[in-house]
């Protein structure tokens, strides 16, 4: 399953020093929201992980495998109707063939999630 251009769309990307910030639009009509949860749409925490992975892949222009989660914290649930447009900032560094990705998911003053994950490249 790829979420990009289906579950979310990239509206804009902006690079500032060693950080890249994406603005994305969530599709509140997506079937995932019918099942998670019926009558109470909430962006699944695992879809936030998948979104950060796909944005990192887009940024690095390579396929990634999530090898390790140092820590992922969710502070507030994302209702896709109230928060259709959210921001994801990425800070990516490479070490020994692995990519350290630190990400923050937010809108205005609200931080929804903070993620610190290590990806490996997928050999094709």
């Amino acid at each position, binding site marked *: *399953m790829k979420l990009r251009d289906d579950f979310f769309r990239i509206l804009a990307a902006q690079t500032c020093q060693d950080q890249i910030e994406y603005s994305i639009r969530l599709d509140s009509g997506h*079937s995932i929201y*019918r099942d998670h949860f019926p*009558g109470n749409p909430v962006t*699944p*925490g*695992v879809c936030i992980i998948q979104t950060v992975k796909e944005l990192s892949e887009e940024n690095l222009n390579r396929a990634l495998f999530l090898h*390790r*989660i140092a820590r992922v914290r969710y502070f507030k649930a994302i209702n896709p109707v109230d928060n259709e447009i959210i921001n994801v900032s990425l800070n990516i560094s490479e070490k020994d063939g692995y990519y350290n990705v630190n990400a923050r998911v937010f809108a205005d003053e609200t931080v929804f999630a903070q993620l610190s994950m290590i990806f490996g490249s997928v050999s094709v």
Partner: protein
Amino acid sequence: MDLNPDMNVRELLPQQGRFVMIDRLRHLDETAAVSSMTVKGDNIFVDGDVFSEAGIIENIAQTAAARMGYIGKYINRGEVKIGYIGEIKNFVIERCPRTGEELTTSVEIAGEIFSTLMVQAKVTVNSELIAHGSMKIAVIDTP
């Protein structure tokens, strides 16, 4: 206790439809739960024939959620509550499963504070350890 294999797991989970990520809750006791799921081609977390990392994490969260759902419904005679992943920590994925493979997922309750459950999880395929780590799940009464 080992549970009736015919029990419908959907009765134990707030997630529905194609977002249900376990087939069966197989075992449950005071401090643990075990689920199983065979990866099918039409699973929403399958890309090509690979079950994604996100799918593995959801499978673990729902194993813990099904345990809470069983206790809430059959032991406390209440409703199945909605739970959210609050935190994932020290989590390692060795490889992603492929379609046709059966995941056996066990969660051990490492602690419970108010309505937050801390679990230590392990996912195996034919006794090969493919993922492990810890997770906090917060349960809420009303959406």
